[in-house]
């Protein structure tokens, strides 16, 4: 096994939003809003203390220590808690119950007394500067024999509108965080485990669905590589690819290290000011910059431009580090001349800094402060290249490659959220948490109990309409019909631009519980008030404003009028010898055939009437 030989070790962390009616620490709805709907904004500065900044060089630290100003959008659906202007409400019991249910399904052990913590987050995504989070259960099991280490209940962060502007609608939505042990050994295994956990979460029926409601972080390392955490993989299908590409990146970085060492490469030269060289440059970026510095990487030539991952080079990594100081990026001689920089300028640059052919020169442009900071960052990353793979937090790019975000955080800086009382999880409470059926077990049951085709059973079990399906079969509605309606028919109607949601509502506008209209129609089929083929038409009419009752009548009168007669004629015609032999006495046996054909969708008396007419017609012809 290729990946086993490379010593691949991976673990995942899944963040899933819960579909509770209120947020985790306030009574606001857990609803996302369009940014245009914001009804106000305010701004704050978050103060970083030195220890929060992690491992970054001094210049960069100074840069980040500057006051960081963040703007926040408020909505009529957010409150002072999101504004960090009011103490939190008690931990939402609905969210805790869902979290415990998930823990139970994963065979975990609950913590007897759950304590809410403040985890420092100073990127602006939390108005307070910390995220509230609580460890709820430990030690679960996975189908691959691996372990789930912990499940935590935390508040979702605010959504970034752009740059340092955040939207408060998402802040505080309950989130469960499931952390596995580093128990996976291949990209496919990571994908399988992520899919399995996703299935477990959806089995509760109480998690949010749709893009952005579930995010996976993947921890990956290979032998001689380093632990790298890739944040925010939203598409499940991409997880295996992300792992493959990270393994490749680490392998290539190790190969670069090997060659750098062979060449005796070093990063010892101080950055040099080369601003004057580019005073008439064709490069707009260099022209505009008040300061341009060059970092000479001895022995790096050719390797900085080498691809380490689809669309990424070692130069991209240097650039990511430099960008932390506010510069737009870097130029390096492995990719020059280009971008308006001429061959003459490159030669002049090499001459000026005394670079040999084996050296790579990196250019950083911007204002003095930024440039000095960025040079240090470039040097730092180049030094890492001599060591191999740096431990990092990275973010996923489109397609599955990744870019550098920040150093791997040390132990999270946490302290107690004193405004939230600890919540006891008594053994009685834990016992009462229902164990829900896993979706894969449910699919198997649907196949077994209701005779659904395996693919349909799976589709139904994983569908967001699974509760409606369950209700339909409990009402005695044909499982096949219910599944077809809830999967295919609704999809077709939606595709035609119709809003199917009102058909599924189990409460009327006043909030009074009602039988969802789609089930009323399916019951109509069961009671033979309307043919099953007519269901799409009936639903269409209801969406267009008719009541279920009148829609069924309307469809029935047309269908049962014309089509029933045609059906009766064809049944009689196909059995003419029998009809001729029995005469009108053929009615009884033919009724059975006819009723089977309409599958009980039409009233028996009506069938008998129509059939009788067709019989006399046929016998008359004779």
């Amino acid at each position, binding site marked *: 096994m290729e990946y086993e030989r490379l010593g691949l070790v991976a673990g995942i962390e899944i963040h899933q939003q819960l579909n509770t009616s209120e947020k985790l620490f306030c009574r606001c709805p857990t609803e996302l809003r369009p940014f245009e709907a914001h009804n106000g904004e305010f701004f704050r500065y978050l103060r970083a203390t030195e220890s929060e900044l992690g491992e970054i060089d001094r210049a960069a630290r100074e840069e980040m220590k500057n006051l960081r100003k963040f703007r926040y959008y408020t909505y009529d659906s957010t409150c002072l808690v999101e504004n960090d202007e009011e103490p939190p409400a008690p931990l939402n019991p609905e969210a805790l119950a869902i979290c415990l249910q998930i823990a139970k399904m994963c065979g975990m052990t609950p913590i007897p007394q759950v*304590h809410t913590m403040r985890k420092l987050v100073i990127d602006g995504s939390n108005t307070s500067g910390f995220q509230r989070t609580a460890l709820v259960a430990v030690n679960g099991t996975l189908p691959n024999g691996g372990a789930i280490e*912990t499940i935590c209940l935390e508040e979702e962060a605010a959504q970034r509108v752009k740059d340092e502007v955040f939207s408060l609608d998402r802040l505080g939505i309950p989130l469960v965080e499931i952390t596995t042990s580093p128990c996976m050994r291949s990209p496919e295994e990571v994908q399988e485990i992520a899919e399995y956990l996703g299935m477990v979460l959806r089995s509760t029926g109480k998690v949010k669905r749709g893009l952005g409601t579930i995010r996976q972080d993947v921890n990956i390392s290979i032998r001689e590589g380093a632990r790298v955490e890739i944040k925010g993989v939203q598409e499940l299908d991409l997880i295996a690819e992300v792992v493959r590409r990270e393994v490749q990146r680490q392998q290539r970085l190790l190969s670069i290290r090997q060659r750098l060492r062979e060449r005796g490469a070093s990063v010892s030269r101080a950055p040099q000011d080369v601003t004057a060289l580019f005073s008439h440059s064709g490069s707009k970026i260099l022209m505009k910059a008040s300061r341009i510095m060059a970092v000479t990487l001895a022995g790096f030539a050719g390797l900085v431009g080498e691809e380490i991952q689809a669309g990424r080079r070692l130069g991209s990594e240097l650039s990511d580090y430099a960008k932390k100081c506010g510069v737009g990026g870097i130029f390096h001689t492995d990719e020059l001349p280009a971008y308006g920089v001429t061959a003459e300028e490159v030669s002049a640059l090499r001459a000026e800094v005394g670079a040999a052919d084996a050296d790579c020169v990196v250019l950083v442009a911007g204002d003095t402060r930024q440039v000095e900071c960025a040079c240090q960052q470039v040097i730092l990353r180049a030094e890492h290249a001599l060591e191999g793979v740096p431990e990092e937090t990275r973010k996923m790019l489109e397609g599955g490659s990744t870019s550098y975000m920040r150093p791997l955080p040390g132990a999270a800086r946490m*302290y107690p959220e004193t405004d939230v009382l600890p919540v006891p999880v008594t053994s009685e409470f834990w016992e009462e948490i229902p164990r829900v059926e896993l979706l894969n077990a449910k699919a198997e049951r649907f196949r077994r109990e209701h005779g659904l085709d395996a693919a349909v059973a799976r589709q139904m079990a994983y569908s967001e309409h699974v509760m409606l399906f369950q209700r339909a079969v409990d009402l005695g509605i044909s499982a096949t019909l219910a599944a077809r309606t809830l999967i295919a028919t609704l999809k077709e109607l939606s595709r035609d631009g119709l809003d199917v949601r009102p058909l599924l509502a189990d409460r009327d506008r006043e909030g009074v519980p009602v039988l969802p209209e789609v089930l009323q129609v399916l019951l109509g089929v069961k009671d033979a008030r309307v043919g099953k083929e007519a269901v799409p038409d009936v639903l269409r009419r209801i969406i267009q404003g008719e009541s279920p009752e009148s829609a069924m009548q309307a469809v029935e009168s047309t269908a049962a009028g014309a089509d029933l007669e045609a059906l009766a004629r064809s049944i009689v015609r196909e059995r003419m010898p029998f009809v001729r032999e029995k005469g009108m006495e053929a009615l009884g046996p033919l009724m059975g055939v006819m009723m089977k054909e309409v599958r009980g969708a039409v009233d028996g008396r009506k069938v008998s009437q129509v059939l009788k007419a067709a019989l006399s017609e046929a016998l008359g012809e004779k």
Partner: protein
Amino acid sequence: MSDLRSGDLVRCFVGGSELKGTYITSRDGMAVLKMDSGYNIGVFPGDCTLIERPPPVKPEREEVIQDPSLPMLSIVSTGGTIASRIDYRTGAVTSQFDASDILRAIPGLSAIARYRTRKLYTILSENMTPSIWQELARAVYDEIKGGARGVIVTHGTDTMAYSAAALSFMLDTPVPVVFVGSQRSADRPSSDNVMNALCSASVAVGDLGEVAVVMHGTTSDDRCAIHRGTRVRKMHTSRRDAFQSIGVSPLGYVDYPSLKVTLSPGTRGRGACEPAIHDRLEPACGLLYFSPGMSPDMLSAYSGLKGVVIAGSGLGHVSTSLIPAIRELVNEGTLVVMTSQCLHGRVCDRVYDTGRDLIRAGVVEGEDMLPETALVKLMWVLGNEPDSQRARRMMQENLKGEYTRRSLHGV
């Protein structure tokens, strides 16, 4: 288990799982452990056993060297926290009172002034008493006499307005005496403590010559408002901009982060008087909040007090049924002052019958004074003026900006 100490490394069984962590404390009968991940969990104390007791870690502290060319400010702390430190090992948050600690927590302060600190009390502001106000006034007076360019008083926000009013009456100050606190705890990166502290220090080295409260002006971190100690009130339980000047414009603003101080015309300037202290207070005073249907018996609890401020309804009313009891209070020698629950606007007991009855009963109209300020003023007036007629008159005079003769439009 009973002999576990904070910081001990312990082993604990939860369900079938063995967990290791650091023992922090005991809470609601449960042992609180901190896991390596940073999370705290509560477990049954009987399930924990000691692994080892690591030697205590001494926090490193370095003295901060202050710039001798800058003016000297004094920070007198009573319990409000303007700086705190978090020990992420134990999760403990400790308030910082020492100048070096404060400057380490809020480095920007060192560009504004030098500081000396005086820790008077560490109490919650709801536990303040008139005698602590007196002690505070003496401490601030000493600091002014001792050459402080300005004095910053850190104070819990709940009763900060009372203390500010009390010092306003007790002190004649030629330098700024600035009350400051934080509405959101100082441990959080978003706390208002840093901005409030920087703005208050900027005011304290500035041109003001009176007692003021300096706190956030809006929910954003854009500016602090400077409020007169006798006209300020906490108007929200939790917002940063809870403190507001009532019935007057603030004394000024401090822009942030520029720290540019703008004072309104009419503020008392630095050096307008010699420092003086009149620290006598009559503590036997009370504040009565009228409500409809209130029994006259309630007033018996106020009998024997030297002064009572009533927060009446509207223009300054109580129900007709209370008037005989109030008349009796006055006749017994209690000075009764009427203010309004409306907070905004002036008391006028000459418009309706009940008002006229109150005046006839001997109640003093408290003009547009805030009820709490009127109470503090009453304590001060009764503590310093033995003549009851003169005391009555003083309650209707403007002593420290607590009272305005004209109600202005737009404030």
